């Protein structure tokens, strides 16, 4: 059985004695260092989404280091940030449990969440303690629609992202002289894929696109041949896929093998469409794939630094890193503005102020009455050569879209 946390063993007493003596011995040091502000990061460090959690952690750690090296939180006399990572194990109950643990660790706020199911239960757990929670890239609209005062979301939600995606799709098509008439939707049958397919089915026809087929498949899927053969028979101008990493890669490769060449592949929150791992491993299959997704400002020098850090660790860069870097930055500003690590004051500060958005292309972050960052928006990217380039909107664009890709 677990030992009662409050019970004292002889060793603990000895240890605290030693600690106490050293504190008495160095009173000057103690006064110079104000109590650190603990901030929780809830990410899937193990389980199915472990890669994402790992990348997020790198971003958050980078920001904490940067802030501490620049003198910590000025409003609190230079208090350092202390990052405490909670592992959500890629599932909802463990997410709630990890949030409880972060609460016990005495964090001033929790950042992250990553997946919608985890973010839903974790924010709810945090709300019991009025613990501020800033959600990252969990996109379900419902997260900020439950009237939880503690819950904010930094990234765009599903509706915001799809609205941008559709707008840019129309622009892309118009600019190229309207080559796209027919669209096929391929989606995974979970929350994310089905939700997206439903919106696309509603919104695409009024914009002048004809949907020739909507194909659903489960996750995980081991073979995409049937889906791709069906696509070959339909020969749509554009494929709109929405799946997770593995299925996306599988489909792109099968399309290549079967020589299905649509005029474009346009993903929204595409599983692999803006992943360097995909580009690196399957450069041919990835060529020209477009995505509308969370993405850091490509022109910021910090983006380059983060990329270097991730690559130096032998990992492939993805959006989790810049998002969580920026989340920590927003949190630090909120503490500065609150002038306190008090939870209620941080919630107040988050709700009332505007914040610099770190390296996310959101201009000034402003949380609306429900806690959603009203300035958040996704960027459109395209795989060009060995790189992923931002193609829309103009102020962040690094390259012109290559479209249509196959004549």
């Amino acid at each position, binding site marked *: 059985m677990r030992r009662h946390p409050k019970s004292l063993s002889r060793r603990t007493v000895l240890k605290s004695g030693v600690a106490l003596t050293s504190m008495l011995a160095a009173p000057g040091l103690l006064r110079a260092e104000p109590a650190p502000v603990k901030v929780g990061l809830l990410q899937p460090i193990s389980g199915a989404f472990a890669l994402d959690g790992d990348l997020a952690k790198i971003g958050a750690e980078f920001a904490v280091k940067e802030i501490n090296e620049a003198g910590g939180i000025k409003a609190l006399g230079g208090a350092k940030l202390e990052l405490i990572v909670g*592992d959500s194990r890629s599932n909802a*109950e463990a997410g709630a449990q990890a949030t409880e643990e972060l609460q016990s660790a005495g964090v001033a706020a929790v950042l992250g969440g990553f997946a919608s199911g985890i973010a839903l*239960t974790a924010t709810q757990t945090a709300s019991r303690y009025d613990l501020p929670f800033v959600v990252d890239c969990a996109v379900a609209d*419902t997260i900020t629609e*439950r009237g939880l005062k503690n819950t904010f979301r930094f990234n765009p939600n599903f509706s915001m992202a799809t609205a941008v995606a559709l707008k840019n799709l129309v622009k892309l098509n118009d600019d190229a002289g309207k080559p796209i008439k027919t669209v096929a939707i391929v989606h995974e049958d979970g929350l994310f894929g089905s939700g997206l397919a439903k919106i696309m089915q509603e919104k695409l026809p009024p914009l002048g696109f004809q949907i020739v087929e909507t194909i659903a498949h489960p996750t995980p899927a081991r073979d995409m041949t049937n889906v791709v053969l069906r696509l070959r028979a339909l020969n749509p101008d554009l494929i709109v896929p929405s799946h997770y990493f593995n299925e996306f890669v599988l489909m792109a490769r099968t399309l290549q093998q079967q020589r299905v060449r649509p005029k474009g592949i346009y993903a929204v929150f595409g599983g692999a469409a803006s992943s360097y791992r995909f580009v690196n491993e399957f450069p041919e299959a990835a060529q020209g794939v477009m995505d509308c997704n969370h993405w850091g400002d490509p022109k910021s020098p910090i983006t380059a630094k983060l990329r270097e850090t991730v690559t130096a660790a032998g990992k492939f860069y993805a959006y989790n890193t810049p998002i969580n870097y920026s989340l920590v930055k927003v949190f630090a500003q909120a503490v500065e503005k609150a002038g306190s690590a008090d939870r209620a004051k941080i919630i107040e500060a988050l709700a009332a102020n505007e914040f610099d958005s770190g390296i996310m292309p959101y201009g000034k972050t402003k949380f609306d009455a429900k806690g959603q960052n009203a300035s958040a928006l996704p960027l459109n990217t395209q795989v060009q050569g060995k790189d992923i380039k931002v193609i829309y909107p103009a102020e962040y664009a690094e390259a012109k879209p290559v479209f249509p890709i196959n004549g």
Partner: protein
Amino acid sequence: MTRPRLATLAIIVVALGVIAFALSGALLNLMIFMMIIALAAQGWNILGGYAGLSSFGHAAFFGAGAYAMAVLQTRFGVNAWVALVIGIALGALVGAFIGFLSFRSGLKGSYFALITLAFAEVARIVANSTNFTGGAAGILLKLQNGLPYLQFADRRYFLLIALGFVAIGLVVSWWLEHSRFGAYLVALRENEQAAQALGVDVFAVKMKAIAISGALTAAAGCLYAQNYLFIDANVAFGSWISIEALFAAIVGGSGTVLGPLIGAIVLLGLGELTKGLSHGIPGMDLMVFGVILVLSVAFSPNGLVMLMKSLGLRAPAKEREA
């Protein structure tokens, strides 16, 4: 006989209740989850442990309870307590339905396991794709504290309710060990033909067992939905819960009164304890957990309850020697 007495069970439940009142935060949350899994495992144990009909699809019952709870409250505005009762009844009904189809055609052993797995998977896919169940987006229950909503600002009350259900599970198992019906179950587990030859109505006994089993596991589903306030198809009907339920029961000791409860507490407690070992290497804790699990199953193949009993029997012998 080494069956626990009713008084022993009462002491265990009261002790857990006292512990419950000393807990807060992460430990409280963990214990609530332990009780939910214990209850699901108790349900599995009735069918898999006593009757020897191992199911791989108790998620079907768990999900039925969870969805009943969520759908009734959010769509029809039914009171949480009423929804709880209906959810449990639905679990029994789903059990009877699956039982009727599979026992009528005499399925047992691995065939029965597969058919239950198939039912759970079908339920998962249906729940994932129909609007009535919220589709893939799942259902979010409203956070509102108060006795009528079966949600409490002080979650120790919720833990006590969960513990109450576990106590019911214990009593049901205890009753099985002391009743004619329980004896029938064990008889058909040991030798179905012999039981039939002796006049046991095998079909009726199995039907009753799967209905009770379904009801208990559905109660766990109801409590899950009410505690986490969010379910989707993969949570409610996902194979994880089928595995947790059979795992807890088997590790604790299948076909014993206390097995599922002990299994759930040990498994989840171990999972939490090993969490601290993950420093630096993600998933390290799960590997350690796996190794401990393999060792515990290797050294107590009949479950922890049996291990405890054999240790308990040996201890006084040593004393006598001394």
